[in-house]
């Protein structure tokens, strides 16, 4: 069946013919890609020898699946999408009509009913359906809740868009309260509510907010000043170790050490800034990356001070502004003072509000700074450094202040991180952390606080949520650990978002001053900066 591929053939070929051909190509490519990845695998046998395991069956399955998938996509999905005009050709976005078709009142009611029924039956699900089906039912419940929430958001989309910041801040402020109340109702006891809230407040709330804060701090360096910094985690580490060391050795309180840690980090920001002032773009990125690694290696190897990989533990907890403590043994333990039941959830909730406060401080300062000459100079620097110099802006100090300010917020986040963990070790400050924070900034849209917060929510919340997908174990067998696929999904999400919105969630820029009306500046005009 030797056919020469000519341009006319494409025109004449029916979708099925075309799909068949493309499926063959896709299969061939998949075979080439996966023959070593999936087809062969090195393993150890009983006598600890390295052996090669061949998995031709699995390979064949993957290749066939790829080919079939491509076939179905080209033969049916593409014509179907085209006939529905699903994707807007110009923007690549789903048109409004698609969303209205997806979010409908009957579906919404159904979702609510399902979610509610499954919530009520929660305790007896296992008994009713058996463990396997109960897992699926819980997943269905989660989907129904997400769908219901999404519908509400879609219905009020213009309102949400108009009041995004206010809504976001109040949602964040109410989050622990809602979680505790919901769980208290669910379990039927206040103590149960607090106990159950631990996971939601700590793993989701605090974790996400730490990344929001880091990303907002890095946003100053990358999003505003356009200086590509790949070693941001170094300042996080400086802040964490500053609090850990000074807190454990001198017993100083968090409230003194927080600004101190910020100052230390800012100092190191300037230290890093000086040698890299002349560098731009890729070169700057490489040097900052090296700086991050240097700090980590120092932390590992300077054992006398940092205790190396053995970590520093016993970091004092944050006190409630010195009035109440969160140590059960202390006389002014919060539960004793307020006469309530002992629970570790209080500390977590307190930490949640603390990091929320720090985040809001970061946002406030960033918003203020953008409207001040220094912030405008940062953005101008990102746009054109030569023009800046021709206007009498001292680019040296401008860059250094950007590094220092960004680093300071990294330091704040670091000292908070140390206080929350109770220990610090160099493993927390690997390059991957810098990369994740950078990814959040890029994904959110450089320079946009709201976009970055949403990106942090999606990225960190999403990867945390993957831990919840235990039912997948029933599908793929007990060896399957969804957490291990977090980074894969992280990467896939990044690729998709970047294809769909190359400038991040919020690609446009809010001007810092206006004469007549405030118009957002389209992302196609702003520059990313070259160093």
């Amino acid at each position, binding site marked *: 069946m030797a056919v020469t591929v000519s341009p006319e053939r494409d025109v004449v070929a029916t979708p099925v013919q075309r799909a068949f051909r493309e499926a063959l190509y896709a299969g061939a490519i998949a075979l080439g890609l996966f023959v070593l990845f999936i087809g062969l695998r090195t393993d150890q046998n009983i006598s600890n020898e390295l052996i090669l395991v061949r998995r031709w069956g699995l390979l064949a399955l993957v290749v066939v699946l790829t080919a079939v998938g491509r076939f179905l996509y080209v033969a049916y999905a593409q014509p179907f999408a085209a006939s529905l005009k699903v994707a807007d050709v110009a923007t690549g976005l789903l048109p409004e009509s698609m969303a209205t078709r997806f979010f409908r009142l009957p579906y919404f009611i159904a979702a609510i009913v399902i979610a509610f029924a499954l919530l009520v039956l929660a305790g007896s699900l296992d008994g009713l359906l058996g463990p396997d089906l109960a897992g699926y039912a819980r997943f269905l419940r989660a989907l129904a809740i997400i769908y219901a929430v999404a519908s509400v958001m879609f219905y009020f989309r213009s309102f949400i868009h108009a009041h995004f910041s206010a809504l976001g801040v109040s949602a964040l402020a109410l989050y622990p309260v809602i979680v505790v109340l919901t769980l208290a109702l669910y379990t039927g006891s206040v103590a149960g509510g607090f106990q159950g809230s631990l996971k939601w407040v700590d793993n989701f709330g605090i974790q996400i907010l730490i990344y929001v804060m880091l990303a907002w701090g890095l946003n100053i360096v990358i999003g505003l000043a356009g200086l590509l910094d790949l070693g941001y985690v170094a300042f996080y580490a400086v802040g964490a170790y500053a609090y850990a060391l000074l807190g454990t050795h001198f017993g100083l309180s968090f409230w003194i050490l927080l600004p101190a840690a910020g100052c230390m980090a800012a100092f190191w920001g300037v230290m890093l800034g000086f040698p890299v002032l002349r560098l731009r773009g890729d070169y700057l990125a490489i040097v900052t990356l090296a700086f991050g690694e240097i700090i980590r290696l120092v932390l590992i190897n300077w054992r006398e001070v940092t205790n190396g990989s053995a970590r520093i533990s016993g970091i004092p907890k944050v006190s409630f502004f010195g009035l109440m403590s969160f140590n059960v043994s202390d006389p002014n333990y919060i539960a004793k003072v307020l006469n309530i039941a002992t629970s570790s959830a209080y500390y977590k909730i307190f930490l949640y509000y603390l990091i929320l406060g720090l985040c809001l401080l970061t946002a406030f*300062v960033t918003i*203020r*700074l953008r409207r*001040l*000459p*220094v912030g*405008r*100079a940062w*953005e*101008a620097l*990102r*746009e*054109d450094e*030569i*023009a*800046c*110099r*021709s*206007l*009498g*802006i*001292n*680019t040296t100090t401008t860059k250094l*202040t950007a590094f220092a300010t960004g680093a300071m917020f990294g330091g704040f986040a670091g000292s908070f991180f140390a206080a929350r963990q109770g220990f610090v070790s160099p493993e927390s400050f690997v390059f991957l952390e810098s990369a994740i924070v950078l990814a959040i900034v890029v994904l959110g849209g450089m320079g946009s606080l709201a976009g970055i917060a949403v990106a942090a929510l999606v990225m960190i919340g999403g990867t945390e949520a993957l831990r919840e997908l235990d039912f997948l174990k029933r599908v793929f067998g007990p060896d399957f650990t969804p957490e291990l696929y977090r980074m894969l999904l992280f990467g896939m999400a990044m690729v998709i978002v970047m294809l769909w919105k190359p400038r991040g969630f919020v690609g446009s*820029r809010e*001007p*810092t*001053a*206006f*004469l*007549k*009306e*405030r*118009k957002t*500046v*389209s992302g*196609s*005009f*702003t*520059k990313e900066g070259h160093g």
Partner: protein
Amino acid sequence: MNAQASADDLILQVEHLSMKFGGLVAIGDLSFQARRGEITALIGPNGAGKTTVFNCITGFYKPTEGMITLNKRDGSTYLLERLPNHEIPARANVARTFQNIRLFSGMTLLENLLVAQHNKLMKASGYTFLGLFGFPSYRQASAESIDLARHWLEKADLVDRADDPAGDLPYGAQRRLEIARAMCTGPELLCLDEPAAGLNPRESAALNELLMDIKNSTSILLIEHDMSVVMQISDHVVVLEYGRKISDGNPQSVRTDPRVIAAYLGVDDEEVETVLTEVGDEDVIEQLDTGPDAAHGPGNSASMMAGPVSDTVEHADEGERVTVSKGASKAAQVDARSASVAGKPAPVAKKAAKVSTAKAAPKKTAAKAAAAKADSASKGKQAAAKPAAGKRGGRK
């Protein structure tokens, strides 16, 4: 009248400025002056070194040699070649625009003009600290800066688009915005690098108007290829070719200067030839004889001139290396021609007078032109005849 100009009339004095990039002499021993309240045009063929002169004045390049003095209205004097880049606009109040427009394209027009007022606002915001806490003094300064921005937007006829991104403007408007932005720094000297490049006639006329308006408060140094703009608005023209000054004077005198015409249009080979043979100047003929191409007959006069001219150029520059291809400088060819003519006094006196200003002029030529110089000076002709171009003559 230039001869009488006192030091405080001069806003900018460039003396013996040289800029070398490796072996390439982009500017060779250039001296000129710009007077306060005037538009001084710097013209020359492509690659003559005009932008390099600007880069030296505004601190983007550190000149290899020479002195650039700026006299401010308040009497203070700055040596620009010693100031760091960003302090030249900040302290010496010299602003500039760029040949390839450099706007902050992702910022609005208003923001572009506010960035230009950075130093002033920085002080008012107490180096950020007072501004961070919203002190009223900063709020007032910020309102004033917006007023100034509005003022220049109106002058540049851009106020309707104040809240649009600068990158969204048409080309001509971007040029005007860049000028407005430079003006927002409150300069005493404004350096414009080809502001009319790429403008249509209507935009060009609007630009002229804007420049004439700016001229009332600020002296302008202008690079321009568009002769109509130069002739219309400039008070004083300096012509560069291959990094050397070949002419300096008012627009009319420069326009008729054969060296300038030659630099722009090329010398008519036959004309040179006839002049040379007609004059029978011994020096030139001698040079012709020793020149490499002279042996091949007088057919190709451009290359025929090559040997002697390049020699004298090097000679005049005290042995510095010139990578200009031999015989490339059209003005130098005119020099050589004029040199031969200078022997005959009356008919060519005017031409010879201009020759004397040329840095590249051979020393012999300068000497020969001396008589003619005196002649035209007595006629009250200006800069062209003034010995300002002489090595020590730059200082008055």
